């Protein structure tokens, strides 16, 4: 690593390393959004799908409630079910009788072990892209659905879209680091290790790195 290219690479790696650890945080954010959505709507489950453009699939990224454990990472074709409809039309949907709706992918639901009766779904729009879909399943029916519910769904969807965008950014950065030159990956690893240490040990590490930089800069 030498000259300005090296500095740029290292800078990129350090920035990316911060994001590397970020994937877990972004996932936690998405998880907290579905958990909050499930609670606010008194629903049996809520989930966030990411649209994987390369494979044109929808991937469960966060699930709260029924069958939440096994679903994260599960993939379905993007033209499947209500989620697919919402992704393509970029419009939210509220359905109170899934049994009668031909768009409902009953097979997919059965494979998850939980077949809902009602669903609210909203596209996760960021700038001009539809990044994924938020679904709220079997919300409490004690009150009639209202326009305020739709608005609230939109609020959660806006949060989830930001969360998904961060997650995508983190993954892109990770891929670029992992596919990059060995020295970049090494610097990234170093930054991540430093990030994980605390107090005195961290101070010592930083001191050591300063010395290393000074040695490397020596003619």
């Amino acid at each position, binding site marked *: 690593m030498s000259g300005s290219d090296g500095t740029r690479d290292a800078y990129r790696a350090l920035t990316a390393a911060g994001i590397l650890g970020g994937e877990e945080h972004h996932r936690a954010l998405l998880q907290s959004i579905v958990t909050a959505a499930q609670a606010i709507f008194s629903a049996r489950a809520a989930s966030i799908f990411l649209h994987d453009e390369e494979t044109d699939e929808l991937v469960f990224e966060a699930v709260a409630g029924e069958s939440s454990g096994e679903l994260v990472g599960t993939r379905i074709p993007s*033209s499947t079910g209500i989620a697919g409809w919402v992704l393509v*039309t970029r*419009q*939210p949907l509220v359905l109170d009788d899934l049994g009668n*709706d031909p*768009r409902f992918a009953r097979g997919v639901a059965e494979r998850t072990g939980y077949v809902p009766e009602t669903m609210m779904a909203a596209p996760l729009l960021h700038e001009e892209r539809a990044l994924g879909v938020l679904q709220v399943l079997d919300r409490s029916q004690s009150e009639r659905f*209202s326009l305020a519910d*739709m608005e609230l769904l939109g609020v959660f969807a806006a949060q989830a879209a930001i969360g998904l965008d961060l997650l995508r950014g983190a993954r892109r950065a990770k891929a670029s680091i992992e596919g990059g030159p060995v020295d970049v990956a090494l610097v990234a690893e170093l930054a991540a290790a430093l990030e994980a240490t605390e107090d005195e040990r961290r101070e010592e590490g930083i001191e050591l790195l300063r010395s290393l930089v000074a040695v490397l800069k020596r003619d």
Partner: protein
Amino acid sequence: MSAPGLPAWSLPATEHDRIAIDIDRPERVTPEWAFGGSTGAGARVCVLDSGVELDHPLVGTVEQSVTVVPDGDGFAVVPDDEGDLCGHGTACAGIVRALAPECSLHSVRVLGAGYKGSGDILLAGLRWAVEQGFDVINMSISTTKSKFSALLHELADSAYFGRTVLVASAHNMPVESYPWRFSSVISVGSHDQDDPRLVYANPSPPVEFFARGVEIDVAWPGGSTLRCTGNSFATPHVSGLCALALGKHPGLTPFQVKNVLYQTAANVGGAG
């Protein structure tokens, strides 16, 4: 029109009589004046959507069904016998039919199997519909892609000047999408009351009118019905009312139709 000594787009004195518009000015536009006794007969309504199921009991006769297919570098509009592959268009057509039972319904399918559609197909379908000179085009769909905005704007203006009322659904989320944001269309959002003829004028556009859009039992493929919510379903209520007004007053321009909606809105001239 122009004449020597006058700027372009001017009106010379000799032309005043030629452009006389033969329409009675009502003292006051009331719902009775606007819609009373009309069945929508004579009005041609186009549903630009996912197709319409033929022979659905709540839709009745669909005079013409076409779809947009790729053709070389462009697109062609061809007859379509696929019906409705996702339900949305049938729902909209059923609502128009419920309000304007004798209007003439036409379907342009721009959303296909697997819900795949594209901005290009949407534009080609809308262009064709505008060229046909329908009285009303119901467009319960929009695009969030700004690259289509300028072309949609041109088409919306062509419809407006060509006496086609373009009724467009506002997005259900607070995002930019088109063509509902253009002033040459009639844009529709939802209210949550059950009266299918109840319309409110919005004093704070871009959404200009609110119509019934919450928990509506709509026509659905397979001859069935489905309970749906969304601005998509508010929009055909306004399209149906436009068809009633145009069936009764065939000469109205989109500007006048919008004014009729405004003057007959429940919140205009008093408490809503």
